[in-house]
């Protein structure tokens, strides 16, 4: 024989399949221990996934609420804050009013499709001896389209000059119920403050921009001016023709008002987009921090995997020595043990993902009104994190295994 180079075994790296099956065998050889490790990993992963999903669901819920209003909406407020980034003057008064004439001037901007003025206030609304304090919105017929309102019965405010104070109103579902009971309300008269209005429509129940539409009464803006004895508008809602022309529209609005207000920039224009972005940011930050807190448990699970793998390495010295005697290189041993810890953490993550899915199902079943979903990227994150955890916390034990002296490892029995 003596033929030096035998060509019987060309050199290949170990087959992936072999690495996986060997490591899987090793990882699952000790059932009780393996189950506990999987449990720890599963708890950590499922809590991260569930929290991310809850946050993401909440974000979608809120964003959807706003997005139904359309992305080409601009809100014009009287007053302006000097400090940029600070809150706009949501409440309070300004010396120079935002008037109905200002609003009508805005309709002449080329990129503006619709304009609706709003005066808001509260007043006692009564029918006979029944009395309720309701939110009174003075507005125009355009509000219907701009805010995507829906009517249960009747019609919305009539079109025409906003300066006409017709004595008609549209009432919310809840207010109607409290004032009229089950009687038909259309065509009936009610009293707001000291004025009489005829009911011409009933709104469908719903929530728009955080306001419960059930408890509002909408009247023509001119009527509201008379009722509250003020000429200043609370808001002007502007719908742009094109959601890509928002900045241009915003600038045009500012220019128009500046000309009308003797060169003063005394309004604030908020785009729907800006509001959405802010909410999106807030919710994302919230979701991330909550998930980050839960991710601490991933670290703990990782420490645990490391610990158990260290035990495994010291229990399997003889096996490691044998593998080395059979010609396994340091790298191969390293790979085998890293694979083992990664398999463990991945299976744990898989179980965690299933737990999370079941948890979300349960939550969706318990709270059907809140749309819950598993965040699509949460599973990717969970698996990715599990892999990283397995590798990071597997390195120390795997290195220990790889560095064992074969003669020494075999000798100790």
């Amino acid at each position, binding site marked *: 024989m003596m033929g030096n180079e035998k060509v019987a075994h060309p050199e290949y790296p170990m087959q992936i399949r072999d690495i996986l099956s060997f490591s899987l065998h090793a990882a699952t050889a000790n059932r*009780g*221990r393996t189950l*506990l*490790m999987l*449990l*720890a990993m599963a*708890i*950590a992963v499922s*809590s991260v996934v569930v929290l991310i999903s809850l946050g993401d669901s909440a974000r979608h819920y809120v964003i959807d609420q706003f997005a139904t209003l359309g992305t080409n909406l601009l809100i014009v407020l*009287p*007053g*302006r*804050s*000097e*400090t940029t980034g*600070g*809150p706009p*003057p949501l*409440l*309070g*008064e*300004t*010396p*120079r*009013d935002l008037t109905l004439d200002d609003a009508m001037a805005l309709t002449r901007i080329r990129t503006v499709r619709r304009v609706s003025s709003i*005066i*808001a*206030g*509260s*007043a*006692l609304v009564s029918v006979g001896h029944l009395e309720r*304090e309701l939110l*009174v919105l003075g507005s125009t017929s355009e509000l219907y389209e701009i805010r995507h309102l829906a009517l249960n019965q009747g019609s919305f405010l009539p079109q025409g000059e906003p300066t006409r104070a017709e004595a008609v109103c549209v009432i919310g579902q809840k207010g109607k119920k409290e004032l009229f009971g089950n009687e038909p309300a259309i065509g009936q008269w009610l009293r707001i*403050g000291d004025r009489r209005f005829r009911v011409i429509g009933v709104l469908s129940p719903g929530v728009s921009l*955080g306001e*419960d539409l059930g*408890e509002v009464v909408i009247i023509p803006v001119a009527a509201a001016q008379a*009722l*509250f*004895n*003020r000429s*200043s508008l*609370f808001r002007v809602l502007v719908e742009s023709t094109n959601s890509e022309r928002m900045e241009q529209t915003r600038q045009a609005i500012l220019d128009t008002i500046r000309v009308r207000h003797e060169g*003063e920039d*005394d309004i604030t224009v908020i785009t729907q987009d800006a509001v959405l972005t802010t909410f999106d940011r807030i919710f994302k930050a919230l979701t991330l921090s*909550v998930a980050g*807190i*839960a991710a*601490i*448990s991933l*670290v*703990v*699970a990782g*420490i*645990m995997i*490391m*610990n*158990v793998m*260290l*035990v495994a390495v010291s229990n399997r010295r003889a096996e490691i020595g044998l593998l080395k005697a059979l010609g396994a290189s340091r790298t191969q041993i390293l790979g085998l043990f890293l694979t083992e810890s990664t398999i463990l953490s991945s299976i744990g993550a898989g179980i965690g993902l299933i737990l999370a899915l079941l948890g979300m199902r349960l939550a969706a079943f318990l709270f059907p009104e809140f749309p819950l979903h598993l965040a699509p990227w949460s599973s990717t994150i969970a698996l990715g994190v599990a892999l990283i955890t397995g590798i990071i916390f597997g390195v120390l034990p795997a290195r220990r295994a790889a560095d064992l002296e074969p003669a020494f490892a075999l000798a100790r029995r």
Partner: protein
Amino acid sequence: MQIQDFFRYTFNGIRAQRLRSFLTALGIAVGIGAVVLLTSLGEGLHHFVLGEFTQFGTNLIAINPGKITTHGVSGALLSNVRPLTLEDSASLKQLPQILDVVSVVQGNGAIEAGTHQRRATIYGVDASAARVWKFGVAAGRFLPDDPPRSARSFVVLGSKVRKELFGNNQALGERIRIGGELFRVIGSMKSKGQMLGFDLDDAVYIPAAKAMALFNRESLMEIDLLHSAGSSSSAVAEKVKKALQARHGKEDFTITTQEKMLEILGGVLNTLTIAVGALGGISLLVGGVGILTIMSITVNERTGEIGLLRAMGVERNQILVLFLGEAVILAAIGGLAGLVIGVCGSWLFSLIVPALPAHISWVYVASAELLAAFVGLLAGVLPARRAAGLHPVEALRAE
């Protein structure tokens, strides 16, 4: 068995597997550290927010027009048919136990001094505002106690407005234009800082009646009452409610006592702290599973030793206690380390974000520590019982 022998024996077991014990305790430590740090941050936030609110004093009652029913802000703040008036404000001042009353109108407008102009918040208030809101005057004086309807056109500047408009120049006695009308500067305020995002320094204070005229409105936005320290907020609120109801004929206003508000706020913040702590607790749970795993491995490896102990006449219960003790001590060491991590973490956080100092709540710390020991106990039960249940002969054979 002597107690010190018990400890010596268990510590020996823990020390024999140094790295393993260290990692097990580390798991618990991270969990406890997270709980301590998070609850400290929660408490810090709690203190911060309460501090922001109580800087105006605690014996405050606010009255707003309109009855708040189910949701948030009442539309009546904006406009309403039944306003709160300066006369309402004056009448409330006559009530017993009411020390001071502030009528409030708030708005936004341009303020001009010579060539400088700045847009700022305009507060229409009474002379009493400085006392009720605990404002400090930096120079000059606050608004004089004029009759509400015929107040003179004086203005007091917030520190930021003063700086922006006058820089290092003298502001007192100067005339400035607010919404086109002339006011004489009679004082400027010390910096009060932000109040939940509202910059109180970027504001000017003028008499309420002047503000109403400026904004062309008839009604107040809020009336703030300061009541005597000895009287109960709810009792005073009840009296105010009766008095206003008598004037208006119905309850078309909302009364909020500072006490009530703090109570609600405190409740919300406490819930938040507990929720955040519970999130951190997930890590503790995982750490507990870690102890369980390591203790079962330990029992497995020390089967021979257990057999020997039993052969030497150690009772089942003693074996149980030995292994339980080991688990609890592991958890407690981890807990202590976690405490150190958490406290150092909150201290670091306070250094980095001095505005929001973390506040270590020892109640939470103590309960976290107890929880750690409990987790250890719970995680130790199963392996310890298995150790105690081993048959001595079988166990010896394993050696």
